[in-house]
């Protein structure tokens, strides 16, 4: 089982890194999701791999699984879920504003407003 879990984490990370290095926004977003899956599994396995054990010390069962990594994973999942939603929105808005899903900033994008006052609306 160690081999299975370890190679699954490695595979997910490799796919994530490959996709994050793409130039278009959608592959990058999906790559970031893969990376967060990989790290969640990794955090989970850091409490040692124990099957069918309760995450609590009880008099009936001597063995237990470490509950803290599960709490960490829960926090990490919530944060990465929110972040994925955010980056999808940013990528979509960027696509709608420029008509391309290229992640690079082009010179024509760099039109903007300075100084105080209400400023003019930017589209």
């Amino acid at each position, binding site marked *: 089982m160690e081999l299975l879990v370890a190679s699954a984490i490695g595979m997910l990370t490799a796919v994530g890194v490959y996709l994050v290095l793409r130039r278009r926004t959608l592959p990058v977003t999906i790559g*970031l999701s893969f990376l967060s899956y990989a790290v969640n599994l990794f955090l989970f396995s850091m409490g040692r791999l124990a099957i069918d054990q309760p995450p609590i010390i009880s008099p009936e069962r001597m063995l237990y699984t470490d509950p*803290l990594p599960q709490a960490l994973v829960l926090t990490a999942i919530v944060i990465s879920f*929110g972040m994925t939603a955010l*980056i999808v929105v*940013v990528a979509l808005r960027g696509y709608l504003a420029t008509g391309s899903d290229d992640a690079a900033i082009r010179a024509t994008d760099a039109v903007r*407003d*300075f100084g105080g006052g209400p400023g003019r609306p930017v589209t």
Partner: protein
Amino acid sequence: MSHLIVLPVILPAFTAVLMLLAFRNDRDRQRRVALVSTLALAATAVWLLVRAADGPQAYLVGNWPAPFGIVLVLDRLSALMLVLTAGVGLAALLYSITGWDGRGRHFHVLFQFQLLGTNGAFLTGDVFNLFVFFEVMLIASYGLVLHGGGAWRLKAGFQYVAINLVASTLFLFAVGLIYGVTGTLNMADLAVKVGQLGVGDHALLRTGALLLFTVFAVKCALVPLHWWLPATYSAAPAPAVALFAILSKVGAYSIIRVHTLVFSEDVAGVSSTLTTLLFPAAAITLVVGAIGVLASRSMLGLASYSIIGSMGTLLIGVAGLDPRQLSAALYYLVHSTLIGAALFLLVDVIAASRGRIADRIARGRISHARVLGGLYLITAVAAVGLPPLSGFVGKIAILDSFRGGSVTVVAWSIILATSLLLLVGYARAGSTLFWMPAPSQIGRADARTFPATSVAVIAGLLLSTAVLSVFGGSVLALTAATVDEILTPASYIQAVGPALTQPGP
């Protein structure tokens, strides 16, 4: 145990939620509440700095004993950073009231959340909570980068979010590795446990620790992880960037905190590897920053690269864990945060008074040239490190602290040579902006009124660097006391939990 320690975290949280729920569309009231809240935050921070002189104090959230519950720790270093955050926050807030806050929704709410995350990162005594507060800070900063909209901000924002999500993933890998070998994430507990580890676990601990420092290096924009900074800082709205001046310092703070507290005793070779890597990386960061300033074709680029350069100077002092170098670096940290904020605000005002050519370093007409030119001169003097302002005191202190060390020649020649490059870069930009006659009618914003509030805020920040210079001796005494405290982690560990120092069963 003083309950005031938790106030810098809950005050912005309540203010933000109040603004969101009670008057989300009433900007006048939002401004007033944000101002009152930030002033209260500044007062609390100053009070905490006074209280921190008594030594480290822990606040056990929910009163759970140390390694099990959430713990906030106040010591001189965190109190100093809190005061700095509140000060820069106040300046950025006042500047935003000139109109920036009206260009999108929820500026003040995001601003308070950003303060919450930053203060939390400075106060927390736990590596996982450091991650959580980093995320709070970053989520708010994503919103602030995108504030005002436009294609540029969306594209730069996407890159910024993506790089930080990768960094967060690395942070979690590091946290997992460290928890896997030590079984704890409380920093004081880690400091004790790390020394008790068997040699077999050292390789994993080392990997985890160095991954952690990589994440902090991304936050500090250390070369080769610096390229997100110019793109993001150029695109984000000026008051947000002024607040971000403290954001890169969070990375430097985390390096100092984790290095001095957890890994100061060179367990598993973490400290020596870090010292060996950090010094050249910081030196290259400084050189890249200086060359960037010299090569910039826009004022925003110049300001961004000078932030990178100042992070390099700061981290050169942090690398060696030498008391005198660290003390000088902390002084420089305070200086570079204030001047970084002032610089970005000034660039915004200058760009607004030049019409269509905005922030490009090119000939053009400019409104209010005398006032803005004067402010630019003072800012440049402080940023380059010429006397009499605090940049000079900071650089002299750093140079002096390297005297008699093993890397004196390298450190001195890099700091002095890059100062010359910075001086040439700033002089070139300033003379092009203010002295070159405009060839035609290019530039000059049409009939702008004098931006009195903005100028007052920038003048206030510059005045604070002058004060920092006049009271240089006292501030350096304060940073020296801070460094003494962080280099003796025993008092910190004792404050968090007296039970931690005893070896476990």
